[in-house]
């Protein structure tokens, strides 16, 4: 009897242990508040995707923080010397979550699917896809595209199962999403939560993951919380295990929490201030120079962002090779140079400290969009401009209205903005003469710039050539002072140390699928 009792007790405790370990494999993450409300997991047609997209789908290649590329569904690749073809070797034995095989035929089906979508520009340069063998494809190009790997590494390049994609039609991405990634989609409620379960057959991890097999977390709930304070309190009370993105002003509070750890990744954002070169007084390069050198980047970094992140001295994030410009062209705070430029331009300081020329005061419009960080940065810039004798009046708009105002082309003068992009082609997006008003807020349309831009965008055959051409374009823009660089944030995320163990090194440009396969739930 005693033995039976003992056996029963042992069995019961074993069951409890197993139960708790199964429970312990569950984790809940919270998406960054800017990603709340992404409407679908359809990478081909969506214009907004959240980070969980990379948990469901693999891409051909992925990008590391040092901007190098690593194979995921492609194991190796080669571009022809003239840039007119790319050959990709595909990873063998990969299956989609629905059991369908991944092979060369998948790519032949996939690339043309982008035609007619908002994402078409990423595959526009590809004329056709040829099958070399079952695991090798060749992209025949219309024009050389040295940016091919960057495009292939985009979140929009997650490869869906052709069978599931065609079967679900317009409902694909909402009613279901099937990829080859480490997690399968179980359920998705827009703006609320996504429930993912582990793909036990996962075998396509890249070199950026330490774990080459299936993920350690068995069941992952991704919640969407728009209010950062609420997300913080959820982490504090153990309601969730990780906040995938945390605003910098929460860092002191999070760091003070026991059991919570904050980690950072290099950022992909730059705060900057375009100057409308089509309206007075910014038609004068001296005034632009004065404004550019009046911005005290270090003061903003230290006083507003507690020293977290980095100052911006060019238009691009520091991780990009194209940001390594001639140091003489970098824009960093120099009040004496600023004052000298204004003197040379004929703006003389009045009794109230504000400069004037021909009886007209140096008073400009300084715009920004709503959001606490924007407001704070803009207020500091206003004070910094005043210190050199420029009076700036702040106006705050909502994001859609400010865009409509930019399109009127002559209404704005200065604006504090931020962009998020990890490629030098952002220079073209914001400064091409073809997009005056918006997104070319600086209204910059100068023949030499256009020529350098054209060469960088279309005249580069290889990646190295592209870097050289974009660097030249970047240097020219810096020399013309069409913007003032301000600040480069980092990406912060926070997690419960009691619940999760993170890999020692986080690789990749963002916290994505390649890191999540390495995250372990503590027993």
């Amino acid at each position, binding site marked *: 009897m005693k033995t039976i009792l003992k056996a029963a007790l042992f069995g019961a405790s074993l069951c409890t242990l197993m139960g708790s370990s199964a429970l312990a494999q569950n984790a809940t993450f919270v998406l960054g508040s800017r990603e709340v409300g992404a*409407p679908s997991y359809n990478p081909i047609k969506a*214009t907004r995707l959240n980070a969980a997209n990379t948990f469901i789908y693999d891409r051909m290649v992925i990008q590391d923080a040092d901007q190098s590329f690593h194979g995921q569904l492609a194991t190796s690749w080669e571009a022809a010397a003239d840039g007119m073809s790319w050959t990709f070797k595909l990873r063998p034995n990969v299956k989609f979550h629905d059991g369908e095989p991944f092979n060369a035929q998948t790519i032949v089906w996939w690339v043309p699917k982008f035609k007619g979508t908002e994402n078409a520009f990423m595959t526009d340069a590809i004329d056709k896809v040829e099958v070399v063998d079952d695991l090798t494809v060749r992209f025949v190009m219309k024009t050389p595209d040295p940016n091919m790997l960057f495009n292939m590494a985009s979140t929009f390049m997650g490869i869906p199962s052709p069978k599931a994609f065609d079967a679900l039609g317009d409902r694909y991405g909402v009613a279901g999403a099937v990829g080859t990634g480490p997690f399968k989609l179980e359920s998705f409620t827009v703006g609320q939560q996504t429930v993912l379960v582990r793909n036990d057959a996962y075998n396509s991890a890249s070199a950026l993951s330490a774990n080459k097999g299936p993920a350690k977390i068995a069941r992952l709930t991704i919640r969407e919380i728009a209010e950062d304070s609420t997300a913080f309190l959820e982490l504090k009370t153990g309601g969730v295990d990780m906040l995938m993105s945390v605003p910098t002003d929460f860092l002191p509070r999070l760091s003070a929490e026991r059991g919570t750890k904050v980690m950072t990744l290099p950022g992909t954002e730059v705060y900057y201030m375009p100057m409308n070169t089509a309206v007075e007084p910014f038609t004068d390069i001296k005034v632009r120079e004065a404004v550019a050198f009046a911005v005290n980047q270090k003061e903003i970094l230290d006083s507003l962002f507690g020293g977290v992140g980095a100052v911006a001295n060019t238009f691009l994030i520091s991780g990009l090779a194209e940001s390594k410009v001639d140091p003489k062209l970098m824009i960093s705070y120099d009040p004496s140079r600023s004052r000298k430029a204004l003197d040379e331009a004929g703006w003389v300081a009045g009794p109230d400290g504000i400069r004037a020329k021909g009886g007209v005061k140096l008073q400009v419009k300084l715009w920004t969009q709503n959001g606490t960080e924007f407001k704070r940065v803009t207020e500091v810039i206003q004070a910094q401009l005043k210190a050199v004798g420029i009076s700036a009046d702040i106006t705050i708009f909502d994001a859609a209205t400010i865009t409509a105002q930019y399109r009127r082309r002559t209404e704005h003068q200065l604006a504090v903005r931020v962009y998020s992009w990890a490629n030098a082609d952002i220079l073209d997006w914001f400064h091409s003469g073809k997009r005056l008003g918006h997104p070319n807020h600086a209204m910059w349309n100068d023949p030499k710039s256009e020529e350098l831009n054209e060469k960088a965008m279309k005249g580069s055959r290889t990646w190295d050539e592209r870097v050289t051409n974009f660097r030249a374009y970047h240097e020219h823009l810096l020399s013309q002072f069409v913007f003032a660089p301000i600040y480069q944030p980092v990406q912060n995320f926070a997690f419960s140390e009691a619940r999760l163990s993170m890999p020692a090194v986080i690789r990749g440009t963002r916290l994505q699928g390649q890191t999540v396969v390495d995250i372990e739930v503590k027993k």
Partner: protein
Amino acid sequence: MALFLIRRLLLLIPVFLAVSLVIFMIVRFVPGDPIDNLLQIGSTEEQKTAMIAAYGLDRALPVQYAIWLGKMLQGDLGEAIILRQPVSTLIAQNLPHSLILGSLALAFSTLVGIATGALAASFKDGWLDRLVMTLILLGSTLPSFWLGLLMILLFAVQLGWFPVSGARSWSALVLPVLTIGIGGVALVARVTRAAMIEIARKDFVTMLHAKGLPPLQIQLGHVLRHALLPVVTILSLRIGWVLGGAVTIEYVFARPGLGSLLITSLNQRDYPVVQGCLLMLAIAVILGTLIGDIVQAAMDPRLRETLR
């Protein structure tokens, strides 16, 4: 009463048409457009023009309105430009959350508001009245956003009684309902109290006292009954508000709802969704007023007479 009902219902048709026109125009007169939110870095002018045409935004406004109205009358609210789903699906997903939260909050503020208002009126100028009036003042001036966070700090973080956020269980409803309800309690209690004090001064109440009826019976059976007329008006006007006005609460508690859907879509200028949501809210206000009128007419024969 039937004639009254029919007349009121027929009146709704021109109101509905006028409201739909105002909604359509307002959304389009606000600067900005949905295409800006669709454009990816790197896309060309031609792609943008094609997109504008694909969503019919290049047509004249009267044509766009006629198409929208025509489809709407057939029950089709259109397809969301940014969210890529039928607007009716989006509303169907969000409306139940708003209805549950709104109706519970309305019920809470009605019951507690009338009870506290009646108590305060019965003990007019006493310490209970002063206490209730102070609390009412506090309840109506506290911003709901801040009150919500305070509630979370106390009941979810400190005491751990309820979840911080989400809409995954019934317990997650308690804090948002209380947060919205408290503002309503203050309003209903104030109106109830004022109306009861006014009614208590009427001659018929003096007569009831003279007849020797117990004060409690007079207060509850006669004074409160008459005082409920303005309360019903206030409550019917709040029906539309509780559906769409809970945006900040939905935001703080990370709950889905019509208010959040409206604000998100408004920020992205997703015209079909904004129109659909505003239309739902307008219908809620119209129906709320209608229900208020019917209840009032049912409660007060004089009103039926004047409307005849």
